[in-house]
Structures are given as structure tokens and as C-alpha cells.
């Protein structure tokens, strides 16, 4: 039996692209906002593109807050773009809206970089040399964002990326959870490889 993956539907712009990419690699993935389906699945993917505030609002509307918080630490979990940022406490994008707070730290806007949004293909490099590969090794992935996460605990940072001399955390990893600022669903073969690795490790 193929492992069941829930792709959380809170109306994220890249929902269908992420679905199509998992489908393309032959994964058993379902778009859902049903709390029971999410809790019963073997792994969970939280997609996202767009604004922090409206994403949190939608997650609250569908009553998904507690479920996401609980599965993110219990099951293999993949956060993508806003799906990474939402895991933190707050964002400069919408200061009056609280994040999910799975991790301590906040989401900040690019400060040094001149060109915002950061759009395009950029290198993702391991933060410390003892990290082993999670489907990539100093590869180039596709990014589209204006904000990035600053975790309080530095050891959460799995990989970093540099835009206009500004270095930021592009991959967060803790136990079964991996969350990426880039879009694996739009990063060609390298992105599909990362999704395959995620599926294989469930």
C-alpha cells in the first residue's frame, strides 16, 4: 500500500501545482481540509504562496490550527513557502496576526536585498557540513517571496540561500518535519527529486 499523504487545502495559490507534482511522481496524495483525513494520513503537506495574514485567516476559518500544530510534530510533514512561514510565531508582513507558533522565531522582510520579491532560481546550501542530503546537494531551486524565517533556535536551520548579500534560512528541519522557502513543485527535476525523497522517507 502506498503511504497516504494529505495536502492541506486552505485555498493556497499553489495547491494544485503541488498536487500535480506529487501525482506526477506517483504519490498517493489527497487534497483535503477534513481534520480526520489529515489526522489519519501517513504524512502531511502544507502548501502556500501569497500573504501570511490571509493564509492564517483561512486556516482559522477551516478550524485547522490545532490539527496542523499537532501533525507537524507527529508525522512526516512538508511545509512549502508560506507553509514554512506559518509555522513561526509572527510575521512582519501582518504584525497583528499570530502564526501557528510551532517554532519560536519570526518572519521578516528582506532588509539588505535591493530586488524584492526574490524571484528566480537560487542555490540552496547546507548550513553545516555534517548535514546529510535530503534530496539535494547545493542545488538550485525556484523561489518567489519577499519574507523569510528567522528561527530563534539556530539548529533548526538546515540550509541557507543568499539573495543580494542577504543570507536567509531556506530550509528548516526538525525530526520528521522539513519546510522549504522555495517551490519544489516548480523547481524542475531537482524539485521532483526532493518530493520523491520526502515520500520515500515516510
Amino acid at each position, binding site marked *: 500500500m502506498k503511504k497516504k499523504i494529505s495536502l492541506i487545502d486552505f485555498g493556497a495559490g499553489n495547491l494544485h*501545482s503541488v498536487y500535480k507534482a506529487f501525482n506526477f511522481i506517483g504519490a498517493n496524495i489527497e487534497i483535503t481540509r477534513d481534520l480526520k483525513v489529515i489526522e489519519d494520513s501517513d504524512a502531511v503537506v502544507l502548501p502556500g504562496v*501569497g500573504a501570511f495574514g490571509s493564509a492564517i485567516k483561512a486556516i482559522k476559518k477551516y478550524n485547522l490550527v490545532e490539527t496542523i500544530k499537532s501533525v507537524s510534530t507527529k508525522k512526516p510533514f512538508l511545509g512549502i513557502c508560506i507553509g514554512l512561514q506559518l509555522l513561526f510565531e509572527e510575521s512582519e508582513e501582518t504584525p497583528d496576526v499570530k502564526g501557528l507558533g510551532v517554532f519560536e522565531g519570526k518572519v521578516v522582510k528582506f532588509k539588505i536585498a535591493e530586488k524584492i*520579491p*526574490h*524571484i528566480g*532560481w537560487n542555490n540552496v546550501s547546507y548550513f553545516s557540513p555534517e548535514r546529510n542530503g535530503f534530496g539535494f546537494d547545493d542545488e*538550485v531551486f*525556484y523561489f518567489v517571496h519577499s519574507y523569510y524565517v528567522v528561527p530563534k533556535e539556530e539548529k533548526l536551520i538546515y540550509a541557507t540561500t543568499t539573495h543580494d548579500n542577504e543570507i536567509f534560512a531556506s530550509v528548516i528541519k526538525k525530526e520528521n518535519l522539513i519546510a522549504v522557502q522555495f517551490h519544489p513543485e*516548480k523547481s*524542475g527535476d531537482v524539485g521532483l527529486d526532493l518530493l520523491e525523497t520526502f515520500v520515500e522517507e515516510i
Partner: protein
Amino acid sequence: MLTKRIISCLDIKDGRVVKGTKFLNLKDAGDPVELAKYYNKEGADELCFLDITASHEERKTIISIVEAVANEIFIPFTVGGGISSTKQMKDILRAGADKITINSSAIKNPELITEGAAKFGSQCIVLAIDAKYNGRKKTWEAYIKGGRENTNLDAIEWAKKGVSLGAGEILLTSMDSDGTKNGYDIELTKQVVESVNVPVIASGGAGKIKHIIEVFHETGCDAALLASLLHYKDLTINQIKEKMEEEELPVRLTEV
């Protein structure tokens, strides 16, 4: 470091890919999904579909093309041509596109940029500008309707305004250079790059690899848009990227 992007542009008419020079003389150059797959394999960093279908009804075919492309190709792609409402933007983005380019409709209704950016994010809204030099005024003017109508708007001022309204990227086509194969309009591109803080995509005029190297080195633009040069296999993306690497431009290399 962000790599310099090579974008393969496909002009779509009635569901087929066509490309003419100087916006006239269209020739059929193939099936959009097959071509998209081909360019993805070749190492295109992005794809751009411009729907030049004339009538409103026939435009619906673009949605099915977007869906078909999104099912099989996992790199970013942009769709443009005749989009004049956020409803149309939503349908195209939902079908799997990542960005929308708007041109004539943004000039007629600049609020469309703001509305689109508010609904889908600035990163989704690419402002396309067709610019032509006016020797008398010594400035570039923005044209609409596929280059048929002069708006008398200063192209550089319009780029700045578009960004302030919420455009996340500028797709800049030099009408003077387009189809000439004599190189990009360096001066125009440079001025726009220096005037805005969002990525600029240079378009129009590439005939040789050195033109692409030149536009990156001399203007600081982020991406080069290519069409007929690739469609008629005068050059391959791999050849272009190898040369870019040799010239120490940041580039995304893929296995071919």
C-alpha cells in the same frame, strides 16, 4: 546567488504556437505542450505563453493549454494576452500558471495591477511593456494592442508607475529591436533596470549568443526572453547557458 534566467516564449494563436517577426507574418511552429516539454528538458528556467488569439471565445482554449502544461511541466510559467480582469487572472492561475502578464489592459486600467497584486501577490503580476523609440522626443513610448497603437506614455515612467502600483516584474520588449536579430536594446533595458527595484526581463532582438551575454553584462537585467531564436533551433538553451557560465554569469545548469 540568483541565476540569470532564460525564458522561452511561445506565442499562442488558436491553441497553436506561432511566432512572427515584428509582430507580423505569423508562422505555425507547433504544439504548445510538446514545445513546453522540449524547452523544459532543454533547461529553460521559465516558460511564457502569450495568447494572441483575437476573439474572446477562442481565448478559452488557453485555459486547457495551461492545464495540460501544468500537468507535466514543473517549472514556473507565465501567461499573458488579453487578460483584463482579476477573474480571468484567477482562472489562469488556478489552471496552473504562476504569473500573469498584462499590457494593454494595464494601461487602460492601471488599477488592474493593484487589484491583481492585492489578490494574488505582486509576484504574480508581470507588467509587459512594448517600447519604441521616438527620435523627436528622444524617449521611448509604450505601445499597446500588439504594437499597433502608441499610447504616448513614456515607457520608463510607465515602468516606474507600474511597479509602484504593484507589478512584481517588468517584461520589456523593444519594438525597434524585435525581430531584427541585431541584439537587445541595451540603452532602453539599462534605463528601465535602473529605474525599478523589481526583476526586468529583456525581450526583442536576440540573434546570437553574444547578444544575450551582452544584455546581462551591460544592463543588469534578470532574465532574457527568447522565442524564434529557439523555435527555429538557431541556438539551444544549453549552448546559451554554457556560454553564460564561461562568461561568469550566474546560471542554472541542468543535465541534458
